[in-house]
């Protein structure tokens, strides 16, 4: 394209962007026609089943597959003894980087056992049942050693990493002299927060179907949040050019971060398919899901704040200790949100890691922001009660007019409106300022609120539009729909960008053969892909405009391109709408059936700075532009606590967010509701228990790892503040996948405090913690 088009403005006549359009894929989903990655009945398909380690540390002394191999239908058993050699593995730093692997170890490349649940064999058989039976018949002799289960184990090696999150964030941050500021602060508070291990648990578990189309060409139907990232990983693993690896994900049953990377089972399945010469499908069992695709790590945060008597923050010091794997320095970067949420002149953060026999943890919806906000938003609530100031007022007194961590102005920030509207919808003014006094019969009633924020990360992607002269269009981008509505919102964006009705658009995604889109992660997908689609449509209009002004039969003959605008599928003069024509007429006259355009959408600071966002999703280089880019919001929660039985029920919920342009009122509302429920789960019930002696989970199923059920969730009120942000991308979309759960656990905990007068800083807030008799 010759120039950057202007910021997307919907036409004066309302378009479909923003409207609550029903999901375009909804009917296929409820009819069972939407195919997920384990649902491709390929000819000759056989089944892979993992056998996982019974110990958490030691070695495989011997592995006897003879009995299993005798089972009818068994084709192959992969172990560390026969895994075909890979071009690269993540076992060394260079390989890990090339693959983009989330974990610095690939199972079946060694006899060493590092964590419970580590795959020790992969059985391939002609039926799932036979593969399962054979896996049970494999006899593994282990030389077991005593494992370390967590950083809390006295034997765990504790260290201060220079970098965390695979080098994406600093292990130490300092802004001003927080220690000195704290020493001089009239109010000093220190609080310790713990967070249980959480697992993503998407309804669709990890699943891979691999078929080698030729000796050097493979297609993989994969349950992933990003086909391109998986393609890159597999091409590095296999030593194949990227174009020889095709990855397809047409539908995804949730991801929440655990499908943001290419995990070991995927490449092992690809290798199994190579060995047996047939397509192989592998689906993780629910217990295997708990040790195959990462988790949110167990962690302790210590947050110290210094404040004036008026409640103005003077110093914040944040320390986090968490468990990581034997190879990687992974920790969620909790301190980022603490550094920028409020105006505070000084800040310091430290990370500590403890090595244990666990797999590497990974990004889990709002990684860092979710547990980090629990700490800062609980402490702000503390400060409000200590000073007798309303929790909203304490936040307004510390309102950050620019980003304290960078000094940059915000690209947009509607947090004041979020507080005000949320308070109004919730009825915050009815709150009794005293804790522990509002009752409903035997139940204690509490109101709590918390702030939410999530960054607009740097990202970019491309899209292609093919517009047909008969008024249809096919729009493509290799994006992923996690189930949140990408198919639907991109159809809306394409419809308005092309001046067509949504039912004239077919949006295709989830295939590396399509133009490259970023991972659906870090809340970047909606903004990046919608901008790409819009830019691709602009490219089509530019081409059509050029045709029109050169066509003597066109009313626009010899007009200047910059004077021509598109309105409802019509090319016309900006100043005289009567002079123009429908694109269909123009194309028919030119004798062309279709015309194609492509466009690149940039998202985040790269858009503002006009820079490439190459590797941006890895580097999170969010400071290239002049503005700091974030969504903001506020959650309001009412709980009713039974002080005798310890039960906490969320009885009312209000979330108000300012997140740029909202593409679809219905899917956006659903996504905020989903994220809030995710957060309520983390606040009240989600916890994976790891045995301290065996370093093995004891509740790795959905019967005992509790996530909210319908009965736990009240009607929820969701609103968005109208927000126009011209700096973040051509569509002005910030993305809402993650901000929806930031601050949620604090809002719940703050409501519990208001109800009971008891501050619970250990998530989840289960009945034992309300009763308070749980011994240390």
């Amino acid at each position: 394209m010759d120039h950057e088009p202007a910021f997307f403005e919907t036409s004066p006549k309302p378009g479909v962007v923003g409207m609550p359009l029903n999901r375009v894929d909804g009917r296929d989903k409820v009819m069972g026609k939407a195919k997920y990655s384990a649902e491709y009945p390929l000819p000759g398909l056989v089944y892979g089943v993992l056998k996982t380690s019974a110990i958490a540390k030691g070695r495989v002394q011997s592995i006897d597959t003879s009995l299993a191999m005798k089972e009818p239908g068994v084709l192959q058993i992969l172990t560390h003894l026969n895994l075909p050699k890979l071009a690269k593995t993540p076992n060394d730093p260079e390989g890990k980087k090339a693959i983009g692997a989330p974990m610095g170890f690939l199972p079946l490349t060694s006899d060493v056992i590092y964590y419970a649940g580590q795959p020790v064999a992969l059985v391939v058989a002609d039926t799932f049942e036979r593969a399962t039976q054979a896996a049970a018949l494999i006899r593994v002799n282990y030389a077991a050693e005593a494992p370390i289960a967590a950083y809390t184990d006295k034997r765990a090696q504790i260290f201060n990493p220079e970098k965390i999150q695979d080098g994406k964030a600093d292990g130490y941050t300092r802004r001003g002299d927080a220690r000195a500021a704290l020493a001089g602060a009239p109010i000093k508070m220190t609080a310790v927060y713990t967070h249980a291990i959480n697992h993503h648990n998407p309804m669709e578990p990890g699943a891979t179907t691999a078929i080698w189309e030729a000796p050097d060409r493979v297609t993989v139907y994969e349950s992933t949040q990003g086909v391109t990232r998986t393609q890159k990983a597999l091409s590095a693993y296999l030593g194949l050019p990227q174009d020889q690896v095709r990855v397809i994900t047409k539908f995804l049953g949730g991801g929440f971060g655990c499908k943001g990377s290419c995990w070991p089972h995927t490449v092992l399945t690809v290798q199994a398919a190579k060995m047996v010469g047939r397509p192989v499908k592998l689906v993780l069992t629910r217990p295997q899901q708990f040790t195959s695709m990462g988790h949110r790590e167990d962690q302790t945060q210590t947050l110290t704040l210094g404040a004036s008597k008026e409640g103005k923050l003077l110093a914040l010091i944040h320390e986090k200790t968490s468990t990581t794997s034997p190879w990687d320095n992974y920790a969620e970067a909790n301190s980022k949100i603490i550094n920028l949420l409020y105006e505070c002149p000084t800040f310091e953060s430290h990370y500590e890691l403890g090595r244990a026999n666990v797999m590497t943890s990974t990004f889990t919806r709002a990684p860092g922001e979710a547990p980090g906000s629990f700490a800062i938003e609980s402490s702000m609530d503390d400060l409000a009660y200590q000073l007798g100031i309303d929790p909203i007022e304490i936040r307004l007194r510390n309102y950050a007019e620019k980003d304290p961590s960078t000094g940059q102005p915000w690209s947009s920030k509607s947090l004041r409106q979020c507080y005000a509207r949320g308070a109004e919808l919730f009825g915050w003014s009815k709150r009794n300022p005293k804790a522990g006094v509002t009752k409903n019969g035997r139940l204690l009633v509490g109101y709590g609120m918390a702030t939410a924020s999530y960054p607009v990360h740097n990202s970019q992607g491309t899209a292609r539009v093919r517009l047909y002269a008969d008024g249809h269009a096919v729009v493509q981008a290799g994006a992923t729909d996690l189930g949140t509505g990408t198919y639907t919102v991109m159809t809306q964006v394409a419809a308005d960008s092309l001046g067509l009705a949504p039912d004239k658009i077919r949006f295709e995604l989830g295939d590396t053969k399509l133009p490259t889109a970023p991972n659906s992660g870090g809340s970047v997908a909606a903004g990046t892909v919608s901008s790409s689609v819009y830019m691709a449509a602009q490219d089509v209009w530019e081409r059509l405009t050029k045709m029109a002004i050169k066509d003597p039969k066109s009313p626009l003959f010899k007009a200047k391109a910059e004077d021509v605008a598109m309105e409802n599928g019509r090319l016309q003069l900006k100043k005289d709408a009567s002079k123009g024509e429908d694109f269909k007429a123009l194309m028919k006259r030119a004798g062309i059936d279709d015309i194609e355009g492509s466009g690149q959408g940039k998202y985040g600071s790269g858009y503002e700075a006009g820079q490439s966002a190459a590797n941006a999703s890895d580097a999170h280089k969010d400071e290239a532009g002049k503005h700091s880019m974030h969504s903001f919001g506020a959650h309001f929660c009412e709980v009713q606590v039974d002080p005798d039985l310890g039960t906490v029920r969320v009885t009312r919920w209000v979330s108000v967010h300012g997140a740029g342009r909202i593409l679809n009122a219905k899917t956006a509302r659903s996504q905020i509701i989903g994220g809030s429920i995710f957060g309520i789960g983390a606040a009240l019930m989600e916890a994976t228990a790891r045995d301290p002696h065996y370093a093995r989970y004891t509740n790795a199923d959905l019967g005992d790892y509790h996530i909210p059920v319908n009965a736990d969730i009240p009607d929820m009120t969701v609103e968005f503040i109208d927000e126009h942000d011209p700096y973040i991308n051509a569509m002005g979309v910030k993305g809402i996948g993650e901000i929806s759960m930031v601050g949620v656990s604090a809002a719940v905990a703050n409501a519990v405090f208001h109800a009971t007068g008891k501050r619970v800083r250990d998530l989840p807030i289960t009945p034992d913690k309300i009763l308070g008799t749980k011994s240390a």
Partner: protein
Amino acid sequence: MNNFSYLSTATAKDATAAVTGTKGAAFIAGGTTVLDLMKLNVENHAELVDINMVPFKGIEQTAEGLRIGALERMSDVGEHPLVVQNYPMISQALLQAASPQLRNMASIGGNLLQRTRCGYFRDVAFPCNKRQPGSGCPAQEGENRGLAILGGSKDCIATHPGDLGVALAALDAVLLLENAKGKQRRVPLVDFHVVPGSTPQRETVLEPGELIVSVTIPAAAHAKKSMYLKVRDRASYAFALASAAVGLDVQGGQIRSARVALGGVGTKPWRSLAAEKILTGAPATEATFRAAAAAAVRDAQPREQNRFKVELAQNTLVRALLELSAA
């Protein structure tokens, strides 16, 4: 899960003969427990003998009380008018258990045989005395938040997971059993389940090949005025942290008869005669209820993570008694 053969039978005789005659055979009714445990390799049956066609059905009033066929489904029993009206505790226990889908499948007999949710039992990589006698019990010093405080031993503290059994224990229910020879015997519910002691692999008095035919619950004023209160980590579809099955016959403020059993805290459905003794003849006041609750947990032996259950069980029991006496 291992491969297995499947046999459908229409009579108790055929079913028991098949199970006693085939090595590694087991009965299957609703399958909600046995298939779950087979998928986990906790149970490995060579053959499953389907008893769903065996006519152990019916929900009817008899001279001895309400008789429920062992193959009736949890949902049908929980919603049956005779149960709702005369034994509300049983209806509530059933309908607060599991999920609608599971209740539609699970049978009454199978529910009483449901095995513990102890995470060490359910994962074959762990030692477990119940699964592998003599291998050890990591729960004693491990993740024992959900485990039993009553009826445990140094070898096992696995919680009885069910709700129905707790209600039946409270209401003096009697099970009718039938063995492979067609011989029938009656066993009170409270004697059906056994505490683990040094043989936690043995959970009931059921003998190999023996089937539960039916359960009979005597009619009583304390059955008609009864309730089941269940406290759990989420509002539905979770096992009890503590539950109380209580029945009261109160006249003029005095308790004429009382029935008390606790769930979620015992290695078996935990009938508390000590609590009933305190309640019987006493005024229906909170003080009485508190004293009864203290008696119910007097023998509790909590571990590190389940200490809260001592308080929670008492509070649950007191709340149930308060609500029931106020109703």
